[in-house]
């Protein structure tokens, strides 16, 4: 795909894309998955550590991509490791994006079926969602960025309103003691929480679209910090209200937090509808950006127009989404995707950065 000069995004837009990518299923499951691992009320510390690790990994990715600020990952990886290995790695990354995308819509469909539309077939829920997503991404990166900019403030406002409503059942004792059993349990949870932050990898593709690629690092910092705040608030509020014993038992603890109180006198009284609005929009964001990333990858790999790939990937996404048979399978897929991500975006960029530095250094030497 040839990038038209107007198809550029601003630095805030890049940050917004990262934020919306990160916020997704994790918003509902992170309190459980982190508490399961940590087993003490300190899960929120692991969340912060996870965020910091993600920022580090993200910065490595940004550094790597900034060396080739005109190219996306799919294009420059060939320059670093050669055509074949590069192509293969690109394919793996594409598969990663596809699976993430599918995982998101399936998780969304499950929650919708559980809470809102009992009886509606999953295919109907997923299909309509995918069509809307397709309609958006056909417009390219710019409409995507703009849509994300619209749903971000909605998310922030609604989310904060909803979570702060739950102060009613918040008990600080549930969060104490802090570090009562030392730092070890906290470290156990870091891997899980870091995975909830998967999203900075979009920076590998985003930099050539940016107005000022030099500011990518800043965008990434903001892009990870805001979800970090969200996640910490979520984990603190959920554990504070439900206690760690209550959290590990619930499939979607954040939803249960909102369902665990009623505020009489306000028009709504029940606020899970607001949380679901936020959450569906966030899933939509994660879905569209990963979908776009996968289609972009295929287009750049084959050096053809992106539109046929967008249409072509639709059935593929659907099939992948329908593979998991039940919730446990689904969460396993989530874990698997997370593990792949850790390798792909935790270790690989560092490796690539080193290789490219060595190569670049040599070139530099030969020139001088």
């Amino acid at each position: 795909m040839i990038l038209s000069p107007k198809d550029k995004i601003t630095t805030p837009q890049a940050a917004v894309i990262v934020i919306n990518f990160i916020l997704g299923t994790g918003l509902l499951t992170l309190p459980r998955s982190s508490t399961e691992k940590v087993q003490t009320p300190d899960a929120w510390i692991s969340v912060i550590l996870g965020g910091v690790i993600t920022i580090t990994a993200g910065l490595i990715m940004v550094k790597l991509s900034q060396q080739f600020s005109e190219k996306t990952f799919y294009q420059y990886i060939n320059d670093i490791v050669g055509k074949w290995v590069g192509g293969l790695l690109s394919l793996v990354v594409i598969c990663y994006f596809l699976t993430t995308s599918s995982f998101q819509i399936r998780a969304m469909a499950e929650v919708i079926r559980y809470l809102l539309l009992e009886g509606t077939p999953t295919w109907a829920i997923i299909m309509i969602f995918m069509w809307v997503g397709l309609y958006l991404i056909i417009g390219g990166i710019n409409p995507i960025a703009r849509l994300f900019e619209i749903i971000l403030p909605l998310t922030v406002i609604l989310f904060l309103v909803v979570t702060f409503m739950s102060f009613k059942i918040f008990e600080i004792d549930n969060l104490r003691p802090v570090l009562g059993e030392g730092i070890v349990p906290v470290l156990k949870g870091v891997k899980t929480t870091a995975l909830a932050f998967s999203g900075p990898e979009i920076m590998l593709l985003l930099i050539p679209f940016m107005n000022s690629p030099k500011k990518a690092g800043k965008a990434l910092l903001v892009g990870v910090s805001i979800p970090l705040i969200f996640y910490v608030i979520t984990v603190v509020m959920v554990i504070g209200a439900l206690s760690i014993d209550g959290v590990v038992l619930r499939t979607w603890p954040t939803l249960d937090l909102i369902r665990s109180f009623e505020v009489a006198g306000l028009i709504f009284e029940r606020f899970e509808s607001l949380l679901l609005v936020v959450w569906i929009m966030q899933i939509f964001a994660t879905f569209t950006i990963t979908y776009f990333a996968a289609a972009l990858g295929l287009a750049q790999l084959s050096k053809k127009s992106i539109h046929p790939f967008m249409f072509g990937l639709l059935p593929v996404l659907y099939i992948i989404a329908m593979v998991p048979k039940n919730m446990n399978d689904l969460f396993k897929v989530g874990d698997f995707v997370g593990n792949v991500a850790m390798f792909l975006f935790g270790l690989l960029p560092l490796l690539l950065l080193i290789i490219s530095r060595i190569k670049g250094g040599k070139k530099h030497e030969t020139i001088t």
Partner: protein
Amino acid sequence: MMMKEWLSKIGNKGKDPDKDKQAPASQDTTCPFTDNLHFNLECLKQEIGHNWDVHFREFNLGRTGIRSVIIFVDGLSDKDLIDKHIMPSLMVDFSAEYKQNLPYLKGSISKEFIKNEVLSISEIEAVRSIKELASKVLTGSTALLIDGSLDALLLGTAKHKTRAIEEPVSEALVRGPRVGFTESLSDNTSFLRCSGEIENLSLVKFQVGKRSKKDLVVAYIKDIVDPELVQEVENRIKKIDIDSVPESGYVEQLIEDNYLSPFPQVQNTERPDRVVAALMEGRVAILLDGTPFVLIVPVTLSMMLQSPEDYYERWIPGTFIRMLRYLAAILALFTPSLYIAFISFHSGLIPTKLAISIIGTRSGVPFPALIEALFMEIAIEILREAGLRLPKPIGPAMGIVGGLIIGEAAVQAGIVSPVLVIVVALTAISSFSIPHYSIGITLRMLRFPAMICAATFGLYGVILFFLLMTSHLVKLKSFGVPYLSPAVPYRLSEWKDLMVRMPLMMMKRRPKMLHTKNPIRKG
């Protein structure tokens, strides 16, 4: 695309037979204007003489015995002017002043002579083609033909029937000028000129319409506007290829970016103050002859929800009213669909007490919420339309009576629930509070698909509808300006005039999205 081709096809179809017809006439006009009055007259009569309203008045010039004729269209030309100034000059004063020279005059009366010494009217020009003459006569000019002269003179006597300046009907304000555009292009341009001496106001004239040509003026302020924008507007106007342009709505539809979009991408207004404000921001206005509706491009969604009054009132009430309007827009779009979603799908998400009272009032209703809501919403839309068509004195009465009676009777009969009547009324009121008629219609129309989405997927459907609509909006552009700017992409400096209306003190710059040459509005 389809529509456009179709339109242009119509244009082409119209063209071909047209040419065939014109062939003999053009032959006539190629024969030069002779100095033989009789011959010229015959030619002209052939061309336009069959029209009953074309008058040929033959007379002698002064007392010279030189035959002359003036030709005018009854009703279009200013008879007063002809009777009081033209005819006396030619018949009476002419002879009185030039009596001594009379014998020498015959045969040498030049257009310069008439123009410079005889006729005391401002617009006068000479033409030499019968066809041009005919067409000008038909638009109100008076032709003066003199035996022995090679030129025909066209006297500007056109008098368009204009109405008095009135307050714009479609955009009433409590505070603000009570002036509205009229159907006369020259009046309208004069409004722009009159509203203070605008430096560098350019009014560029175009003609649109193949068969019925109409004047169109593109207005902008030269040292503010982005020249690329002007270029684009002019290009699009030049591309208009259509028989006739009865109203600026035609122009709007032919130059808009995406004709499939339900959202208006060009703003129309009857208010000169609005146009001037837009020009000052660096936008372009398009005025068409024969309509009081002036187009403004480019526009954004937020503009559509704003009213000039926001700026005339102080900023705190201005902000409050503006927020209210945003709320109204959201309500107009989503209330019925949320009603359906909660009633038919998520009875668990409404407060218990409310649920019980809704159940109580709905227990006799035989229809599902969708049918019920569609029924009432369509009824109210018909009522609105009917109220519009009816003569003014009975229109509002009929609206109120119809609304009350239908609502009351429907509840009494147990066809709809009282809660729905509240919802429908709320929707209707909200949609009427939107200052811009076209966007109001858009929102009212869009609530029907929203209702269908809600009836299929409940709240999820409503969210998806919102996402779909927003996806569309973020793609939409109006003359290169993103439709949702300045909301997105984020331009914090311009949010001062988006949801809120900050004090004028703080709004120092023109909107950045318009790429104006001169960004400073206020020192």
